[in-house]
């Protein structure tokens, strides 16, 4: 009996090995790990786009500046294009606007706007006042184009390659950090002249 601790005797009697004593601690750490990954690393407010890697859907929409002209998907093809969903009622879009202007001024990237559930006069006034980074702006007054794109808020942006496949999606604003870490590398892959930004 001497030399054997009561703890060891208790474990032997119950058929419990020393290692298995750590099972509860292991389970606890596992649960903490899953919780951390689930709550911290994953922003539940950002949906992964169902369009990623798929062709941009076909659509027909009128232009904000030329309401009589109808534009289709073909007009987005040929070279990479950034499709930016925005509205004058969206404060984040205002914050994003300066960055879009900077990108359009300093790079060769085409930017096409989608004016989402907005008022035409207000949208035109906004572009006059803050500047217009867009090649043209599609109108989506009732949000039906937004539904086709899986948009659930503004701003949202899609990067299309020359064949019209969605290679990148951003929910939320494009800011200098997003440009540097996400958009610029994507553009480099697509071979767009990203300038010295």
């Amino acid at each position: 009996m001497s030399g054997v601790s009561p703890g060891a005797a208790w474990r032997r009697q119950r058929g419990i090995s020393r290692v298995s004593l750590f099972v509860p601690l292991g389970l606890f750490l596992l649960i903490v790990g899953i919780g951390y990954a689930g709550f911290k690393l994953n922003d539940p407010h950002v949906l992964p786009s169902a369009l990623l890697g798929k062709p941009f859907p076909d659509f027909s929409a009128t232009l904000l500046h030329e309401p009589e002209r109808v534009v289709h998907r073909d007009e987005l093809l040929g070279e990479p294009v950034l499709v930016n969903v925005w509205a004058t009622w969206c404060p984040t879009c205002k914050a994003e606007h300066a960055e879009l202007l900077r990108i359009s001024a300093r790079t060769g990237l085409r930017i096409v706007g989608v004016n989402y559930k907005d008022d035409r006069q207000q949208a035109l006034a906004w572009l006059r006042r803050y500047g217009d980074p867009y090649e043209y702006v599609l109108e989506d007054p009732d949000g039906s184009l937004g539904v086709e794109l899986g948009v659930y808020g503004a701003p949202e942006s899609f990067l299309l390659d020359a064949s019209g496949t969605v290679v990148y999606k951003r929910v939320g604003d494009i800011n200098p950090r997003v440009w540097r870490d996400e958009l610029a590398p994507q553009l480099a892959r697509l071979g767009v002249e990203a300038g010295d930004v």
Partner: protein
Amino acid sequence: MSDLRRGRSALLLGLLLSCAVARGAGPVDVFQFDSAEQEARYQALVAEFRCPKCLNTNLAGSDAPIAEDLRRTVYRLLTRDGLSDKEIRAFMQERYGDFVLYDPPFRPGTWLLWLGPPAFLLVGLLVLWRLLRQPPREPLSSDEAARLQQILAEEGAAGPSGSGPGGTQP
């Protein structure tokens, strides 16, 4: 029935009624349906889809503008385009991903989600079974009982400075 019990029943009834009211208090759209059956399908579908903007509300219960748009879309697909429930589910999933479905499809990315709870139940049952299977501890033999008494007496004589549980006696 005593007064106390009657009072409790009334309270319970009141609570149930308030739940019923709260359930019916979602946003109201004015849609025309061809038949009661079509309307029932619409109601079932908007109750089934999850609103993309609000983490845990279905389309039927959400005031968010996007939920309103999607309800209108479901209505249009159902009445004007004549799509089946399955086709409407596919339409929503193509655009908003698995997120809009409260029951995501069984795929490599979701097997943990589906199999996790049954696996935990299984582990729980296994532990329970092992605990129940353990034979009752046998009572001490007379020799062991005598030795226990002796040890206890020695510990008592050594005073409170004796080693605690788990310590090794030299």
